[in-house]
C-alpha cells in the first residue's frame, strides 16, 4: 500500500506546524521522518493516522483519497512512544482488542482470534507473557506488545511515533535491529518518526529530514549523510565542526585559511567539516593557507575510533577530530602536542539564516 501526501499544511493559530509537505512512500518501504523536536514530524504522523486533520492538501492511500476519512477507514497501525497499552487488560486482550471491536460481519471467530494472537505473540517473541498485564512487563516488552497490537488488524500502513524514545540505550539498539528484521519479514509500508539520527540511519530505507514543518531533504541514508543539501541537514546529521568565515571572490576565508568555493557572492559563510575528514600532521608540511595550527587538549581513546579535541592556536576555537586506531598509533600523538589540521573535505554554505 503506497502513501502519497500532497501539499499538506497545518497550523495551530498563527503557528505553522506543517508547511506544504509532499511525500510519497512506496509499498513495503520503511521511511524515517527525522527532525528536531517541534519540527512537525509527529503532527504529520497524526494527520496520516486521522487523529488530526490537515488544513490543506490531500492524503492518498494507494491512489484512494482518504484526506477526510475517519480514523477507522484508514486501517493504520499506530505505535506510540509511551506504548499506550490498555492497562486493565492482559497482553492477550490488548493484542486481540482490534479484532474484537470489529463489527459482527467482519469479526473473526473466537478461535481465529485466539490463533491470531498466538501468532503475534510468537512474532514479537512474548509467548509466555500472554496472561500478564502491561505493568508486569519491561519497557521493551511493552513496546513489542504495542507493535503486535497494531499489527493484529492487518493495517495498510504502520505508523511509529518515536517508538523507542522511552527505552534505555541497550534495549533501543536491540529493538531497532529487531524492527528492521520484522520489516523484512512482513514488508509493511511503514513510517517511523524519530529525532535520533542513528535510529533513522540504521532502520530506514529512506530518510526524510524535516525542520520547521518543511521537508529539507529526502534520500537514502547514504545520500543524506554524504550529500546534505543545505546547512541545516549538514548540521543536523552526524557530528560536524562549524567554522565561521567570509565568502569573497570565490573563496572561503577564515584567518589565513583560504579555500575556493562555488559561491561567487560576497557574504558571511560557514564551513562544515566532519570530524573524520581531517588529516593531521605533526609538522607543517601543508601550505600555510590550507591548514590550522592547533593544540591537542583531549584524547578519548575509547571505542573503535580515537576522538581528539583540539584548540586552534589562531582563534582558540575547539575542533573535534576522529582518527582510526591505526592512524592514531602511526602519528603517536600525545596531549598538549602542537599539530596542523588540514580538512580533507569541506562544505561551505552562505550563513544567511544561521
Amino acid at each position, binding site marked *: 500500500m503506497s502513501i502519497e501526501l500532497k501539499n499538506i499544511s497545518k497550523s495551530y493559530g498563527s503557528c505553522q506546524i506543517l508547511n506544504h509537505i509532499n511525500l510519497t512512500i512506496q509499498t513495503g518501504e520503511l521511511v524515517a521522518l527525522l527532525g528536531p523536536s517541534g519540527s512537525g514530524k509527529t503532527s504529520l504522523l497524526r494527520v496520516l493516522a486521522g487523529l488530526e486533520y490537515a488544513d490543506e492538501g490531500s492524503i492518498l492511500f494507494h491512489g484512494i483519497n482518504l484526506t477526510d476519512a475517519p480514523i477507522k477507514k484508514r486501517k493504520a497501525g*499506530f505505535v506510540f512512544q509511551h506504548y499506550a*497499552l*490498555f492497562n*486493565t487488560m492482559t497482553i492477550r486482550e490488548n493484542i486481540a*482488542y482490534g479484532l474484537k471491536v*470489529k463489527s459482527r460481519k467482519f469479526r473473526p471467530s473466537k478461535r481465529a482470534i485466539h490463533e491470531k494472537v498466538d501468532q503475534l505473540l510468537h512474532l514479537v517473541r512474548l509467548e509466555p507473557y500472554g496472561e500478564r498485564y502491561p505493568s508486569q512487563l519491561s519497557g521493551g516488552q511493552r513496546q513489542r506488545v504495542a507493535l503486535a497490537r*497494531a499489527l493484529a488488524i492487518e493495517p495498510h500502513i504502520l505508523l511509529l511515533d518515536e517508538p523507542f524514545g522511552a527505552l534505555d540505550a541497550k534495549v533501543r539498539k536491540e529493538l531497532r535491529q529487531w524492527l528492521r528484521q520484522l520489516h523484512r519479514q512482513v514488508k509493511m509500508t511503514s513510517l517511523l518518526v524519530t529525532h535520533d539520527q542513528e535510529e533513522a540511519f540504521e532502520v530506514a530505507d529512506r530518510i526524510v529530514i524535516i525542520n520547521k514543518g518543511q521537508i529539507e531533504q529526502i534520500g537514502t541514508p547514504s545520500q543524506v549523510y554524504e550529500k546534505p543539501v543545505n546547512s541545516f541537514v549538514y548540521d543536523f546529521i552526524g557530528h560536524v565542526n562549524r567554522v565561521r568565515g567570509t565568502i569573497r571572490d570565490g573563496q572561503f576565508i577564515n584567518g589565513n585559511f583560504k579555500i575556493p568555493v562555488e559561491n561567487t557572492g560576497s557574504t558571511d559563510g560557514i564551513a562544515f567539516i566532519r570530524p573524520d575528514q581531517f588529516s593531521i600532521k605533526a609538522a607543517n608540511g601543508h601550505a600555510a593557507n590550507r591548514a590550522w595550527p592547533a593544540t591537542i587538549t583531549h584524547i578519548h581513546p575509547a571505542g573503535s575510533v580515537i576522538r581528539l579535541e583540539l584548540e586552534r592556536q589562531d582563534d582558540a576555537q575547539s575542533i573535534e577530530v576522529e582518527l582510526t586506531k591505526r592512524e592514531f598509533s602511526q602519528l603517536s600523538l600525545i596531549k598538549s602536542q602542537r599539530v596542523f589540521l588540514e580538512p580533507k573535505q569541506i562544505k561551505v554554505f552562505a550563513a544567511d539564516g544561521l
Partner: protein
Amino acid sequence: MTELSLSQKTHNFARVKTPMKLVLTEPKWVQILLSLIVVAFISLFLILPLIYIFAAALSSGIHIYLNSITSPETLSSIYLTLTVVATVVPLNTFFGVLLAWTVTKYHFKGKSLMITLADLPFSISPVIGGLIFVLLFGDHGTLGKWLMAHNIQLVFNTAGIVIASLFVTYPFVARELIPVMESRGTQEEEASLILGASTLRTFFKVTVPNIKWGLLYGIILCSARTIGDFGAVSVISGHIVGQTNTMPLQVEAFYNGYQMEAAFALSSLMSVVALASLALKGYFDWKSSRTRSIDIK
C-alpha cells in the same frame, strides 16, 4: 584520586544530614504534647459527639429507638431522601463525567474558566443555592410565572429538592475525575480509536476501567452530600412534614418539636450512612493507589 573524591562525598553527605535531623526531630516531650493535643481535639469534637448521638438515641431503650425510626414522619423522610439520591446521583454522575471528559480530552477556549465555575457550589453557601432556585422558579420570578402558567411546580416539592441538590453536589464527581483523567492523557483512547473501536466502546472499555475508583469515590461523596445537605434543601423544600422533609430537615423538625429521641435516632441512622461512606472512600482510595503503584512499577 577516585577514592579521595568518594570519601569527600560521604563527608559532605554526613554534614548535610545532621542539621536536617535536628530540624525534623523535636524533643520527645514536644512530640508527645503535640500528639496529645491532636488526640484530645479529635476525641472532643469528632468521636465524643458521634458516641453521644448513639447513646442518646438508645437512651430510652431499643424499643423506643425502633419506634422512632419507624414513625411515619421518619419513614417518609427516609423515603424522600432515597428518592432524591436515586435521581440526583445518576444525573450528576453523568454530567460530572461529561464535564471531566470535555475539559480533559478537548482543547477549547475558556476551559479553565469552566473548571473554576464548576466549583461554584463548593464556595457558595448552600442556602444561597436554594434561594436562587426559589427566586428563579417561585411565583415571584419571571420564569416562575411562566412555569405557573403552564402548571409546572418546581419549588416546595420533590422536584425543587432534586434541583437544589443537583446544584449543591454537582462538583463532586468531576472534581474526582479531572485529575485522574488529566494524568492519564488521551493516548489509550487514541490507540483504541485507531484499532477501530467506536467512541462509545472506547469510553466503556478503555476510559471507564481506568477511572473506575475515582468515579466510585466521586459517587460516594456525591451521595453522602445529597443525603446530608441541609441549607439548599431547607430553603426550597418549604418544610412540609411528611411531604418535603428530607432526613436532615426531619431531624430539625423533631428537635424543634422537643422529640429528642426521634431526632437522635434519625441522626444515628445518618451517622451510620456517613461512616459507611467514609469506609468505602477509604477502600476506594486504597484500591486506586494500589493500581497506580502497579502502573508505576
